[in-house]
């Protein structure tokens, strides 16, 4: 996980939130392709020997593997930007700022909402006038708490 403090032009301070990832998407695809190719080779070889019943098992396994890699890839590509200037706070969600919101700085609420069950993580939301945006859902609990504290102290 990472919360990076950036010096964004025009903003007093900006925080970039993104999960840690050690492979690029292309490399993950390559790893998936290598495993898939080996699995396909095994499937073809044994199917030709008459053991075609391994096909559903290798197929199911390939689906689970690809889904796991895809989900992990998608999860690790998340990105959120919180920019704070003198009067407003801007949030951008997604690599291409797919969802952008802005709030008046003076009215901004930073809230850590407790989940109904103790084991579930708290949710960090910021917003004002009944309009809130969740940020840092992919962060670890302590990181989320630290981010909330940092935002509060910056906004004071």
């Amino acid at each position: 996980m990472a919360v990076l403090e950036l010096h964004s032009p025009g903003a007093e301070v900006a925080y970039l939130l993104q999960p840690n990832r050690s492979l690029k998407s292309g490399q993950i695809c390559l790893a998936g392709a290598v495993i898939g190719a080996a699995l396909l080779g095994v499937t073809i070889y044994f199917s030709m020997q008459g053991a075609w019943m391994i096909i559903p098992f290798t197929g199911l396994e390939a689906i689970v593997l690809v889904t796991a890699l895809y989900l992990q890839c998608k999860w690790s590509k998340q990105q959120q930007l919180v920019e704070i200037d003198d009067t407003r706070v801007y949030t951008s969600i997604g690599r291409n700022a797919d969802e952008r919101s802005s709030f008046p700085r003076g009215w901004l609420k930073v809230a850590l909402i407790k989940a109904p069950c103790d084991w579930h993580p708290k949710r960090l939301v910021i917003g004002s006038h009944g309009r809130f945006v969740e940020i840092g859902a992919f962060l670890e609990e302590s990181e989320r708490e630290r981010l909330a504290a940092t935002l509060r102290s910056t906004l004071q």
Partner: protein
Amino acid sequence: MSTTTMTHDEAHHHGAPTGWKRWLYSTNHKDIGTLYLLFALVMLFLGGASAMMIRAELFMPGIQLIDPDLYNNLVTNHALLMIFGAVMPAAAGLANWMIPLMIGAPDMALPRMNNLSFWILPAAATMLILSFVVPFFPGGGTQINTGWTIYPPLSVQVGMSMDFLIFAIHLLGVSSVLASINIIVTLLNMRAPGMTLMKMPMFCWTWLVTAFLLILVVPVLAGGVTMLLFDRHFGTSFFDAAGGGDPVLFQHLFWFFGHPEVYILLLPSIGVLSHVIPTFARKPLFGYRSMVGAMLAVATIGMVVWAHHQYTIGMSLGAVTYFMVGTILISIPVGLMVFNFIATMWRGAMTFETPMLFAVGIILMFTFGGLSGVMLAVVPADMQYHDSMFVVAHFHYVLMPGAVFGLFAGVFYWLPKWTGNMYDERLGKLFFWINVIGFNITFFPQHFLGLAGMPRRIIDYNVMFTEFNVLSSIGAMIFGLSHLLFLYIVIQTIRGGKSLKRSGAKSWEGAKGLEWEVDSPPAFHTWETAPQIK
């Protein structure tokens, strides 16, 4: 600006949940690792009990304690419990505990799937135990007298216990595949910034390769046993020669899984050794890159030499020659690993704590098992040794030191990290010596029994084999009972107390790696902020 005020509870660190739900619903890698290890310990004792019953029966010639079908069922169950119940879950337990700590990740990549992979195991174990118990009930059919290889046509003929076994294998396979996918995704994408693949700890490398192997071979076994199920109940003839099928096909399917399974059991322990030996020799691992290369070579060659288990089925000369040469080739990368370990120890400032004793024991005894493996790889020799007690001695010399002793080394090495307490070193060493001596008394004489012609999987034997069998059975009792001492050491270390030293973050002076930078025992959540690796 206004902000909500956090209560004390909200501000407090997200700690460990309590009660039984903590374990049932756990998504925490350390808790799931602990569950795996405890499960493996229970299975170790069940599998060990069946082994001791086998050796008790073989103490003298003739049939004394159990009937032949039950004897064969015990042989089957011993293998399945030990391989699928004890060794694989124990290695998965080490992986769950250590991989996130070693790579600086907060948890496994898919924590809920991690929970599922573990909780499938008790269901599978129940199926496995039912396969043993069912024949004792009216209408329960015959015992599984096939051995763990469950070759047809015999496996098509036995009673409903075989169906329980087939479903147990399916469940175990699902659990292994899910765990493997989780490990692959974690190792590929959750390493700390700066930790390239070639900076990854060796234990993680061994698990990456193991997970790849599991993914490639488990579906083949699943397909094979499903075909067996269809032959048993749905009128197909996949393995029935009378219906146009081929019983030998099952052997190929089984051993395509079964031979890489040896490396699946072995590699995690090689990973443990790659940490234990440098720690106690106080030198970095010799030849990290060549170790990685050797491991990949072992896995690759190991995938394509399965039929050396089937030399006697009547393959073509070209096929047996290929499988013989391929099998002998494996000794090169395996030898490289062993030489790397020896070179790591060479001129090191060595001390011999329990994990290191196990490591040295592994090198000696596993090499011995490897040498008898080369003997078995040679086709004309194997024609003589096939299905004899020599094979039993060989694979126990490979798998006990290669897999189980490696796991013991890992448990003793990381137990202070997990519990925060240093185990009683005196008892640890005592356990090592009793264990190793018991092991050698049990299995060394079996080489001579096999060479003299005693077949395996037979309840009775010729009186000329009595002396060595008596010796082997005495050794087995020593070996088996020594594990009670292991259990005592583990419980004592978990409970702690005044007699035991507390362990600091770094339990061993020579230990290196991220896992030694977190507290002992580690907090419920670790590496929430990924460390930077230079």
